């Protein structure tokens, strides 16, 4: 293992899940168990590979062609951070799906699409040029459209149609931006675009392209004026898919690309930063208040995702090193605890058959693992001191104060109080109150589901220690530094 060159590992992040998803379609039609085994093996290998890549940077030239002619894949610390998040959450979700997806037919299709989505996200994170980024983004998006509609019930089809229309609209905006950038700079390589823009500065067509990118990727990451599809699509999907969508998809193809383009390629000015800040503030506040009024447990978590994404974009919009660290830390935290919470919601739905908070209650007794892990997830997202969410929100608030944006800091604190309120509502109505008559005699959660939830809960707890220990230096801080100093993009 130790003598594998990271350079040769880079394309495997895309090739392995892609090949595996095809293999599953070929061999697992008749024996669905094979699909589960192959998917878990693939995700385990991907997770080990992303752990192995920590601290290694590199550029892979596809087919050996040098940079201006060929296609690059670039691995830097920010990419590694995202790869870790995608593949760790992906592994937990693959484990969880084993029991959860038993209810559905054609599980081999589910795993195939799931691995395609992972392919797309890994590809977006590693892509070194704008057009490949667009292609991988579409791969992830198309897989997620069909995964949202996987159950083929009324709500799922409706949500998926809404998602696919808005998704293709945003993809068209992004492609227009790609066309403009190519027309102006004459190159698609991110590093070359960056150096061209650094020489000539931003002119009006480039600003238009940047605006199109901000609109397009705000759609993908569901910032507030562009969020209409998320509260339908995320709750309607099967729970493992919701966990993937809310946990990593909106970050890998939304926030990550926004950060990459804004900081590394176009270079930010005060105007653009303030736009990001206001987008963040709006999503944070609107998402938070809409979440508080929800009765459907998954819909509540979906609105909460909008609100938490707002925190990250606010952190990015501050433009300071501290703000970036906060944003990236919150991104990692949110990926773990939001996918955990969606898996919890799935376990509740699996056991009781309902997602309506009014019909639930007292589940701590019948679903002990779900209760305990959801408490960890809730406390993390609400920002209760020893848990990870507290530290990341604290860093973002401190960065607001450091940058002199006191209003934004106060808003962030208030929204985290709202977050605490709705998470306590979920805990009280679903897990703590007395058990309704209808829910007596529930069976406990199946072992693989419990295992996945425990894994993610342990991850949440482990992330709480990142601020204290020496882990943050090689991992979090260097990722933030590379965003600012452009890392291998120079």
């Amino acid at each position, binding site marked *: 293992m130790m003598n594998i060159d990271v350079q040769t590992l880079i394309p495997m992040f895309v090739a392995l899940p892609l090949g595996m998803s095809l293999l599953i379609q070929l061999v697992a039609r008749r024996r669905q168990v094979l699909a589960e085994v192959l998917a878990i093996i693939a995700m385990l290998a991907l997770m080990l590979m992303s752990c192995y890549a920590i601290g290694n940077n590199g550029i892979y030239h596809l087919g050996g062609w040098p940079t201006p002619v060929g296609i690059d894949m670039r691995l830097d610390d920010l990419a590694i951070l995202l790869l870790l998040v995608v593949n760790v959450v992906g592994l937990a979700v693959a484990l969880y799906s084993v029991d959860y997806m038993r209810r559905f037919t054609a599980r081999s299709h589910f795993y195939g699409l799931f691995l395609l989505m992972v392919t797309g996200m890994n590809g977006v994170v590693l892509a070194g040029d704008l057009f490949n980024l667009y292609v991988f983004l579409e791969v992830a998006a198309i897989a997620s459209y069909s995964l949202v509609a996987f159950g083929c019930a009324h709500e799922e*089809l409706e949500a998926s149609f809404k998602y696919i229309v808005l998704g293709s609209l945003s993809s068209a905006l992004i492609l227009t931006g790609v066309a403009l950038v190519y027309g102006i700079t004459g190159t698609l390589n991110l590093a070359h675009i960056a150096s061209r823009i650094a020489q000539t500065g931003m002119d009006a067509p480039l600003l238009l392209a940047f605006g199109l990118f901000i609109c397009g990727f705000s759609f993908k990451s569901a910032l507030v004026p562009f969020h209409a599809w998320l509260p339908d699509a995320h709750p309607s999907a099967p729970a493992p898919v919701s966990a993937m969508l809310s946990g990593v998809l909106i970050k890998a193809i939304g926030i990550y690309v926004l950060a990459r383009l804004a900081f590394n390629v176009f270079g930010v000015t005060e105007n653009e930063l303030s736009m990001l800040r206001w987008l963040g503030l709006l999503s944070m506040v609107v998402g938070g208040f809409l979440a508080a009024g929800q009765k459907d447990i998954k819909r509540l978590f979906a609105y909460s995702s909008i609100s938490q994404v707002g925190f990250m974009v606010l952190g990015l919009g501050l433009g300071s090193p501290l703000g970036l660290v906060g944003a990236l830390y919150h991104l990692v935290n949110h990926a773990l605890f939001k996918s955990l919470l969606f898996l919890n919601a799935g376990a509740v739905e699996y056991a009781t058959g309902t997602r309506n908070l009014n019909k639930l209650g007292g589940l701590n007794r019948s679903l002990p693992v779900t209760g305990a892990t959801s408490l960890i997830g809730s406390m993390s997202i609400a920002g209760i001191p020893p848990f990870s969410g507290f530290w990341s929100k604290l860093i973002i608030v401190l960065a607001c104060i450091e940058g002199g944006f006191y209003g934004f800091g106060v808003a962030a604190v208030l929204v985290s109080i709202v977050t605490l309120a709705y998470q306590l509502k979920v805990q009280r109505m679903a897990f703590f109150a007395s058990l309704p008559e209808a829910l007596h005699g529930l069976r406990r959660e199946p072992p693989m589901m419990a295992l996945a939830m425990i894994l993610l809960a342990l991850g949440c707890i482990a992330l709480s220690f990142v601020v204290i220990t020496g882990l943050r230096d090689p991992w979090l801080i260097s990722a933030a530094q590379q965003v600012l100093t452009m890392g291998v993009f120079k």
Partner: protein
Amino acid sequence: MIYSLCLLLILIGLYGVVVSRQTLKIVVSLLIMNHGVHLLLLLIGYRQGGSPPIVDPGSVISEFASGAVDPLPQALVLTSIVIGLGVLALMVALCVRLYERYGTFDVTEIRRLRG
């Protein structure tokens, strides 16, 4: 001038997506919008009176490069059309499934999700 026609095509598509009530009309509008973008991409690589970007043996590369149209956008558009085909197939399949469930193509009647 000709770029603004692309913009017009994109805007017609956008208008169609916003105002149509039929799922299939929305799909067609999206298609129009997508093709507007494809045309824009193609035009960016176009050169008035340019030669096809195929190198003959024995031609001088620098001369060829100053006379040929840019082949890269054509490759991009091909890729993008294939992606568009995938999305289109999925969208039409969704429309058919929606019709099976709801018995209508009218988006104002397909609304169980709210809140």
